[in-house]
Each structure stands twice: as structure tokens, then as C-alpha cells.
């Protein structure tokens, strides 16, 4: 019946203060990081972290595994790229347009799929995303196999030149924080509470009078929109959008990031994205390029067999245990 993935407790109210401090600390790290690390690498990480957070909204907080999120990443990228190239939009508008386009696609996907459950939902989203992949492969405006090349980064609000990597970085950071904030608000809202109720016991949510289908659909649209926002931003960073983003491997990669970092946790997808991006950067391009797939596959198998909570989930569990133990001791 309902698909229930064993979940980690979402941050409890008493942890919320802690979470805020953690967030502020991370923001300051984010502000200083490009002085030490190659900014393009950081931007890539932030885009994928946002992508994973968006995906986690579905898997972690509604309990539905979408295997088609690559379609939203690519749609954001292509639409933003097209709008920037042909209408000369400023980057913030470009990202907005890409995000909206993904939201609309998310609505269509959602209409076709949210009534399906478990593996059916996964397969339907996968197949729909493949349809989108082939559409982008054939459509003229995407450049097909050549990719959409030469997307201008433009000037933010018509003022700040994003061709400078540092300026671009702070823009990406801002977009990421905005996206993260949306996820945070969604999860910690009455709407988010209903989603969790659906995840834990769908029939009960139905019997309480919630229109489960609509809740799932709205969550799916938000998730798709944020994934699109990640894709839009990524297209600006690399001044290029390509079929790699639409390929189902990308859908698999975001599952991996979320699973590894800890699904159903706020920071899990961010940590997962950091690890996966670090690994793939380490191996990219070289003789060892194919090890990426082997390592990713091995991580998948390991996570499923014995590490289902993910890095952050395990961390939270250990913390919670120690915390409560010390209280009992007193």
C-alpha cells in the first residue's frame, strides 16, 4: 500500500535553534570559501546541493522516489539558457523563467504520476524523464548533442558583471540559500506536517480528510521548481547546457547524493552532494574516469545494505542517543 521508507526524525523543535546557528555558521564559511577553493568547483557543488535538497523534498519528506528529476534540472538549464541568449534577460530573470518552466513541467509529470505508488511511481517518472530527454535530443533550440553553447552569464540586475567568477559565486550562493530556505519553510509548515503524515500513514491522512493527491502534487511541483532553479543556475555557471543533465544517470546521481547524505534530513543532501561532487571531480577526466561509476555503484549498494540513514542521519542518531542518555543520567 503506502510506500514507507524508514525515515529519520526531522529536526525537532528543540534542535531548531541549533540548526539556525549551524546555518549561520555555514553561511559564513560559504562567504569565505571562494578565497581558498576554485570558485567554479564550489558553484558546481552548490548547484548540485540545491538539486539534491529539492529531490529530498519528495523522497525524504513525502516518501516518494522520483527517478526523473534530471528532466527538471535540464529544463531549468535549457529554458534559462534560451531566454538569456535570445531575449537578453538579466540573470535573475533568466533563473526565474527556468524555475517557472520546471514548475510547469513538474505539474504535468505530477498529474501523470503522483497517483502511482512506490516502484510504479519511480518507473513512471523515469520513463517520463526519458521522453523529455529525447525531446531535448531532437529539438532544434537545445542544439541536440552539441549542447546549448555560449549562454551568457549576463549582468545581475543589469549592474554586476557575472563573468567575474567571484561575483558569480556570490550569486550562486544567494540562489542556493534562497532554495534551501524554501525547503526549510516547506518542511516546517503546516503543509510540511501534512506531507509527513502522508509519508507515515497515507490511509490515515486520507481518513482525516486531507486530499492526499493534491498535497503530493504541490510537493512535487515545489521540488521540480527548485530542481529547475538548480539547473538554471548551473547553466549560467558553465555557460552551457547539455544532455548530460537530462540523462537518467543524473536522476540516479541525485538519488545517490540524498541517500548517502541522509534522506529526510535538512543537511543530508548537502553533505551527500559534497561527497559525490568531490569524488567525481577527483576522478573526472583521468584514466580513472570509469572508477566513478564503480565507486558510485558500490556506495549505492553499501548505503542500501547497511547505511540507510546516511551520513547526517547516522550523526543525528548518535547525537540523539548521547543527548538523551546524558539527560537520563542526571
Amino acid at each position, binding site marked *: 500500500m503506502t*510506500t*514507507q*521508507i*524508514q525515515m529519520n526524525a526531522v529536526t525537532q523543535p528543540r534542535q531548531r535553534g541549533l540548526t539556525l546557528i549551524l546555518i549561520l555558521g555555514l553561511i559564513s564559511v560559504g562567504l569565505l570559501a571562494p578565497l581558498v577553493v576554485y570558485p567554479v568547483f564550489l558553484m558546481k557543488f552548490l548547484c548540485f546541493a540545491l538539486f539534491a535538497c529539492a529531490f529530498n523534498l519528495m523522497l525524504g519528506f513525502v516518501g516518494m*522516489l522520483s527517478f526523473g528529476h534530471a528532466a527538471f534540472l535540464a529544463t531549468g538549464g535549457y529554458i534559462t539558457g534560451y531566454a538569456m541568449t535570445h531575449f537578453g534577460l538579466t540573470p535573475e530573470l533568466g533563473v526565474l523563467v527556468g524555475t517557472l518552466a520546471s514548475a510547469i513541467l513538474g505539474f504535468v509529470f505530477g498529474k*501523470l*504520476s503522483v*497517483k*502511482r505508488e*512506490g*516502484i*510504479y511511481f*519511480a*518507473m*513512471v517518472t*523515469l*520513463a*517520463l524523464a*526519458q*521522453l523529455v530527454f*529525447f*525531446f531535448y*535530443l*531532437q529539438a532544434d533550440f537545445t542544439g541536440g548533442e552539441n549542447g546549448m553553447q555560449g549562454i551568457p552569464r549576463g549582468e545581475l540586475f543589469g549592474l554586476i558583471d557575472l563573468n567575474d567568477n567571484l561575483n558569480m559565486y556570490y550569486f550562486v550562493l544567494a540562489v542556493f540559500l534562497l532554495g534551501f530556505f524554501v525547503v526549510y519553510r516547506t518542511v516546517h509548515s503546516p503543509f510540511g506536517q501534512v506531507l509527513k503524515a502522508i509519508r507515515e500513514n497515507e490511509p490515515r491522512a486520507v481518513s482525516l480528510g486531507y486530499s492526499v493527491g493534491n498535497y503530493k502534487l504541490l510537493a512535487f511541483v515545489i521540488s521540480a521548481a527548485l530542481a529547475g532553479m538548480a539547473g538554471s543556475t548551473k547553466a549560467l555557471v558553465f555557460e552551457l547546457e547539455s544532455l548530460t543533465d537530462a540523462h*537518467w544517470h543524473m536522476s*540516479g546521481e541525485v*538519488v545517490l547524493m540524498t*541517500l548517502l547524505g541522509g534522506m529526510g534530513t535538512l543537511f543530508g543532501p548537502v553533505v551527500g552532494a559534497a561527497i559525490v561532487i568531490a569524488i567525481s571531480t577527483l576522478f573526472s577526466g583521468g584514466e580513472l574516469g*570509469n*572508477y*566513478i*561509476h*564503480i*565507486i*558510485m*555503484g*558500490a*556506495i*549505492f*549498494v553499501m*548505503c*542500501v*545494505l547497511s547505511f*540507510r540513514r546516511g551520513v547526517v542521519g547516522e550523526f543525528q542518531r548518535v547525537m540523539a542517543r548521547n543527548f538523551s542518555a546524558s539527560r537520563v543520567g542526571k
Partner: protein
Amino acid sequence: MVTFMGINLFALLGQLLVGLINGSFYALLALGLAIIFGLLRIINFAQGALYMLGAFLAWLALHHLGVNYWLALVLVPLAVAAIGMLIERWLVRPIAGQDHLYSLLLTFGIALILQGTFSHLFGSSGQSYPIPDALKGGYNLGFMYLPVYRAWIILVSLLVCAASWWVIEKTRLGAYLRAGTENPALLQAFGVNVPLMITLTFGFGVGLAGLAGVLAAPVYSVSPDMGANILIVVFAIVVIGGMGSIGGAILTGLMMGIIEGLTKYFYPEASTTVIFMVMVLVLLVKPSGLFGKEA
């Protein structure tokens, strides 16, 4: 050239035949998926990778051990089945009680490992496997030249699919299988070794993928990602057919191959997407699939 109402019949029939050949592969792979799903309720994401493994094993056996095609046609599916049974026993069974999504992710991971390993060892471009001498040449059908080997693919695939269907639907063994699908606990109580049956069924399902791999080796080049691309199509076929019936998987597989062939003639641009469009249509009209029983 024969034309009818502006349609070039020769070209159309040719594309339909090519579609039927592709459909044969779809049917074999969808059948394997359906059998595994029927008993274990898991979607085996590694089915494509095991199809690739079958092709590679045949190629390796030929080039390093001198094992010819005919022997490979028997041995390789058995080898793939054996590997599949090990996977089931050691990796899939430990998470049997968990949500089915985990087994999907697990088999996805296995697929990545297999694909990555073969890309690393043999590069991502294809290796060629010669057509066995006895199946070289072709028939002139008037409207097209049908290479013997392509006809052989259709023949083998249809025979194997029909035999599997017969075993599952018409024999005592098949009755056990179907009973296991409905109520494994009850079947166990009747003294049937259900875990063993599950392992063997998994082996049989992936063995079919291995067989498809050997059949494919001489016509498609043997490459690490050959399974990845076909698998998503097979998933769509499974959604279209619905997961309830073995016959449904076979019929839908063949049908979709033919529809793809038709599209290649009338509107080639859509030939890669047509199956997915059919899927969307089916989802709108009959969400449980054409032959499906799932509510």
C-alpha cells in the same frame, strides 16, 4: 518499387521487420523483469547490465577461450543466471523485508558497478562479435533482404518467450510460481521451499537477459552501455503492459517494437519517443496498464 497510396510498401515492411527484431529483445527483457517482479515484487534495475554482461561473456569466451557461438548460447545464460542467483542470495535477500524502493536502488547500484567495470576494462566503444558461419547470408524476401541472423533472433526469442509462458501458465511448476506470487507463506506451509524457488526464479529471469545478450552480440556491438539504454525502454514497456501478466509483457514488448518500426517509416524523428508517448497515453486512459491487474 511498390507503392500504395503514396506509401513505399517495401520500405514500410522493411522497417516493420526491423521493429519486430527490436521487439524480440524487448520481449525477452520485459519477460525476465516480469517474472522477477511477479515473485519478488522488485524491479530489477540490473536487468540491462546483465544483458550487457551476457554479451560480454559471449565475446570474452570467444576471444579468450575459443568457445563458439552455439556453446555460448547455452553456457552464457547459465553463467548469468548463476551470477544472478548469487546477487539474489547475498544482496537482495538481506533487504527482503524493507521497502521495495531499496531493492530498486540496490540493483541500480549493481548495474552501475557492472557498467563501470566493463567500461574500465574494455573502453566505452563497442567490440565486434562475428556472426556464426551457419547463420551468415540472407533471404531475399522481395521487399527486403533479410539477413539470416536477424531471422534467427526472432525465431529464438519467440520460442523462448512461448516456452516460458507455457511453463508458467500451464505446468505444475508454474502453478507453484503463481501461488508464490499470491501467498508465499501458504505455499511454504505446503512444504515448498519458497526461498529456493525465489532464488531459482531470479536466476531464470536474469538468465533470459543473458540469453538476449548473446543473441544481441553479433548485431549490436558489444559495449558497456548497451543495456542501459534499452532498459529504460523496457521499463516503459512494463508500465504499458502492466505488471500482472507474463503474456502481457511478451505481447507488449513485440508490439512496441513494431510500433517503433512504423514510426521509423512515417515520422523517424519520433521513433525514439513513441514508446514513451504510448506510455503517457496508457497512463491517462488505463493507469494499471493494458494487461495489468494492479489497482
